[in-house]
């Protein structure tokens, strides 16, 4: 089974995806990550206004087995969080690029996006793991 890696998104080596809309980035974890984690039972999201820092922990996703850090693939202020995940964390398993979105961040350093991988490079990266 191969992981889904949609075009048009940027990816981090820590398996987060980023979708940008103007100056606001939506982030989540990739299909590869959700599958590796297994059934997600709990998500810890940052408070609104939190300053996210590039590749620093910004939340936690917890599966039946264990908890894992979510590393923010962008720097900036948290302007929205997906509160539906409190009730249905499994949305991350079933629709990680859609309903499973986690945090929206107002970019403070958009140039950092160049440090991320595009779909093709991320797919190649997955092949090396």
């Amino acid at each position, binding site marked *: 089974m191969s992981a889904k890696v949609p075009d048009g998104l940027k990816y981090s080596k820590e*398996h987060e995806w980023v979708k940008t809309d103007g100056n606001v980035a939506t982030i989540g*974890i990739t299909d590869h990550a959700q599958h590796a984690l297994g059934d997600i*039972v709990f998500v810890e999201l940052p408070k609104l206004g939190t300053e996210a820092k590039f590749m620093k*922990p910004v939340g936690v996703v917890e599966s039946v*087995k264990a*908890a894992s850090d979510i590393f923010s693939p962008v720097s900036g202020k948290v302007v929205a969080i997906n509160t539906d995940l409190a009730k249905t964390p499994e949305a991350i398993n079933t629709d990680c690029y859609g309903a499973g979105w986690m945090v929206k961040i107002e970019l403070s350093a958009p140039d950092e996006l160049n440090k991320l991988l595009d779909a093709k490079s991320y797919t190649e990266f997955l092949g090396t793991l």
Partner: protein
Amino acid sequence: MALGAKVIDFGGWDMPVDYPTHILQEHFATRQNAGLFDTGHMGEVLIEGAGALESLQGAVSRDLAGMENGQGRYTLLCNESGGVFDDLIVFKQNDTQYYIVTNAGTRLRDIEVIQSRLTNATLRDLTPETHKLDLQGPKTFEILAKLCDAPLSKLKRFRMTRAKVAGVESIVSRSGYTGESNGVELFFAKSEACKVWSALMDAGKPAGMLPCGLGARDTLRLECCLPLYGHELTETITPLEAGVKWAVSLEKNFVGADALRAQEKNGVPRTLIALKFAGRQPARAGHPVFAGHTQVGEVTSGTFGPSVNSAIALALVKTGSAPVGASVQAEVRGTRIDAAVVEKPFYKAAK
């Protein structure tokens, strides 16, 4: 595996070629239909000789007298201080042969310890030539009937018998680690492992059986409050503290008995309690447990319990600090989350 407050970095994982199947699916399959577990890593040891019973009586905590051929009993292998080397099931095959099932990681030490406690008896490690598979869940016997002519459904709990499963000579015991009353452990020649596995997969699939991994094994056993060696039982936790006093015969003389009798007399200092959380956020082994402002102990095992739809945990706390009905908190990554101390087990399988 779940290691308390430790948080695992995605990038640092070793990804298997095959993606793992999901724990929740496997868990529910076992509770509703059947689950097939490869437990070949566990140990099988045979004690033989005229001195087998007497030696084992001095070696393990439980009274093994009066068992029928084929009958087994759960027991602890203790150290001199009453701490635990391992939990075992000892089956009597006949008056001079006892078949012991051990945990995987502790097997070699168990062998050393048991060996040192034998007189007029020998120990043979059957593990290298033996494979074990666990088939657990309500449809166990329906599935086995396709592969075995013997009336296995008549086998009583904690009894073993010999039978041909998928044409392979096997020992079948009605036992397991899921809390399901219908379930067996199958022991057979390692060379036949693939054959028996495949036969069970073919026979079980139409019945809704799934192959299950260690993740589901943990959620299943924790829901039923079955102890896991290394968590609820260790060399510094006694069976009395871990709530398995029923597997200890204090009137008998065995290694550790004196220490346990003293502990019983002076008051068992710690108690294993069951915690049910309001939400789904799990606490993990090592997380501290608070009653009010005071830390009273720590979590020994914790996970999400699918059949009870909430996070659950076992915790070892100062005796009396958190009775059933009390509210406590587990500290998870700096935040305290509420839990109720409840009666064990969290889940009781239908008979």
